[in-house]
């Protein structure tokens, strides 16, 4: 969906991105992670055709951001880390303006606005002024504005910053829902645990370069048995869609390529084989471990 090749971007006196190349898979959530100042926001802005690269190219749905920036703008929604709203307008007018500004025909504006507010759960706030909304609700409204024209790509820069746990959970659900509806999402965030909930792919940016990337669908699963059973490894080998990282008679660590249904099927197969499974679940720190491992690798390579 998004192809980036040899991308270079400079600020006066600083090279923010230095030869970045990566592919963003369609209908997936790609997490951009990296330390502060690594170049994540710059990369998102270049994907959104809000900046012009010094060298290299960004293709969004086959369109070059340098040659056809307005066509790229029409295909995506973007939420910056410090977004603003027209505080004097009601939620309904904010969305009506966003819809009209994105070229939706006047007769379809109302419907588009209603669909957008419903998708973010703001249906009961249509007449409320944007300036009177809480931080979490403002975030939802901003996302609704970015979604109102049903873009194929949604770019979100630190979308969970400043949100309370409930709002973060709601945001995760919303992003997964959008992905399931066929949207391609790129999310930049510092909160690795939250990214783990919904990301399919992780790209690590460090010092303006891609320090590593990994698929997260194959998140690590830990399996522990109540009593040792030498058949554990053999049973796992018979399962499709998993990769065994480590296995002995007591426990195993595997990566699972599928989603929740695949994990349920794996658990059923283990129990069905007569194994006394006492612990089965994702390793909560898998993404964090992966992140620091790749970052360290990148650091060692550079030195």
């Amino acid at each position, binding site marked *: 969906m998004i192809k980036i090749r040899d991308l270079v971007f*400079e*600020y*006066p*006196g*600083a*090279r*923010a991105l*230095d030869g970045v190349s990566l592919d963003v898979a369609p209908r997936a959530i790609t997490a951009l992670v990296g330390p502060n100042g690594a170049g994540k926001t710059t990369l998102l802005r270049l994907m*959104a*055709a*809000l900046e*012009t690269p*010094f060298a290299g190219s960004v293709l969004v749905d086959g369109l070059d951001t340098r040659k056809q*920036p*307005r066509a790229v*703008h*029409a295909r*995506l*929604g*973007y939420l*910056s880390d*410090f*977004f*603003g*709203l*027209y*505080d*004097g*307008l009601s939620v309904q*007018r904010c969305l009506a*303006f*966003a819809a*009209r*500004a*994105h*070229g939706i025909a006047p007769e379809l504006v109302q419907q588009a606005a209603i669909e957008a507010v419903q998708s973010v759960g703001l249906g009961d706030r249509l007449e409320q002024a944007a300036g009177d909304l809480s931080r979490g609700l403002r975030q939802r409204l901003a996302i609704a*504005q*970015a979604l109102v*024209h049903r873009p194929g790509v949604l770019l979100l820069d630190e979308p969970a910053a400043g949100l309370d746990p409930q709002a973060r959970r709601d945001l995760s659900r919303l992003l997964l829902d959008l992905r399931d509806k066929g949207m391609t999402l790129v999310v930049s965030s510092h909160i690795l645990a939250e990214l783990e909930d919904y990301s399919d792919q992780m790209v690590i940016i460090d010092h303006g370069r891609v320090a590593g990337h990994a698929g997260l669908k194959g998140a690590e699963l830990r399996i522990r048995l109540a009593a040792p059973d030498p058949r554990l490894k053999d049973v796992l080998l018979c399962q499709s869609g998993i990769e065994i990282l480590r296995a002995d008679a007591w426990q195993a660590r595997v990566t699972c390529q599928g989603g929740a249904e695949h994990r349920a099927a794996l658990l059923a197969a283990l129990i069905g084989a007569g194994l006394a499974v006492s612990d089965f679940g994702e390793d909560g720190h898998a993404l964090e471990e992966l992140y620091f491992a790749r970052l360290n690798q990148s650091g060692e390579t550079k030195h």
Partner: protein
Amino acid sequence: MNPEFQRNLWLELTPARLLLMAGFVLFLLAASSAAGLPGADLVSTALYYFLVVLWGTRAAALSVIAEIRERTWDFQKLNAISPFAMTWGKLFGATSFTWFGGILCLPFILIPAWRGQGAAAATAELAILILQGVLAQSVSLLTSLNLIRRHHNHWRLDTFLCQITGIVAALTSIGVGDLVSSGPQAQAVPLVWWGMVWDAQRFQFFSLVIFTAWALVGCVRAMRLELRLTNGPFVWLGFLAFLGLYEAGFESWFALRVASSDLASQAGATRLAIADLALAFSAYGMVFLEPKDLVHIRWLIAQARSGRIGRAFLALDCWMLSFGATVLCALVLAVLLWRDPQSIGGEAASSLVLPLLAALGFFTRDIALFVMFRTWSRERGDFAALAALAVLYVVLPQIAGAARSLLVPQLTAPAVPFAAAWTEAALLWAWTVIRVQRRAG
């Protein structure tokens, strides 16, 4: 309806604000009438200018600057509104409240004019008042669109600068008719432009229409840049050609006022000199306003080095084009003065070549100063360059004037300023290019 215009109307023209403005205007006019102040038309004219020019220029500037301050500009840039629609939606939407107040003043201005001078005069006055408002506001918007490309956060200063440029544009448009026909020769000399005799008011009107149109074109082009579209150089070159031709038309006015100059005695050379001055002013104006993005300059140098001259030319900034046009025009004038002095004012004309080239050298140095100071500070570079120019053109001549008579009388030789100007220009440009390259990422 244009969605940007509609959004502005939602925010600007609320019933409470409309009532407040109507009450304010009517109260002020009634109070001035009760207090026995000069005619209602004068008070309402002053109020019109206050609302449409003074307040309107601020509203026009804030139409973009406030979006950046409130962090809504990225969202706007990603929408599907065309640069033209975005421009007029902002220009007339963000200022709609001030226009509402201004329109309330118009009957109090026009009815006395109608009664006193007839319908034609009242219509002409209406057209001029509206055009002056549009010109002031569009120049303010144009300035703001240029200033925001510099990416700093001095929004109050930026808004003030935009207001100043808009107000100066309006004042110039008010004064242009008077200026060209005023002074001691006002009665004897009609307004002559390119040899044609013009009625001053009519000339003012047509000038106003054309400059307003150019200001609007400028706004659309600046908006295109904000929406990440590229502008070729040709429209700006067209404006420069127009500016040169427009100013050159005042050759007879110029000749009368600088009659002692040998140059002024010949129309062709005078016209070229006036055109060159206008181009130089445009270069100074644009080099101050435009961002002088060092990364862009490095990109241009890289393109030129790799032989992609055409690609680099298409991406030149306005100040670069103005600079090039000024240099070209000055060189043509110098060649004319050198090769055929008899036909353009006699032998003395050739003696102007060296001072002309010296002036060109100082101009080249000045432009380098702006770029060089920009390499030091994005925030304060332009104002530092202005301060440096003030020192060079105001303070140093005072000191040098005192010193010259005592110490270095030989500096008055004509070759000295020429050599000094080009040495300074060459050194500054070399230093600037080195600094631009050193600030690479």
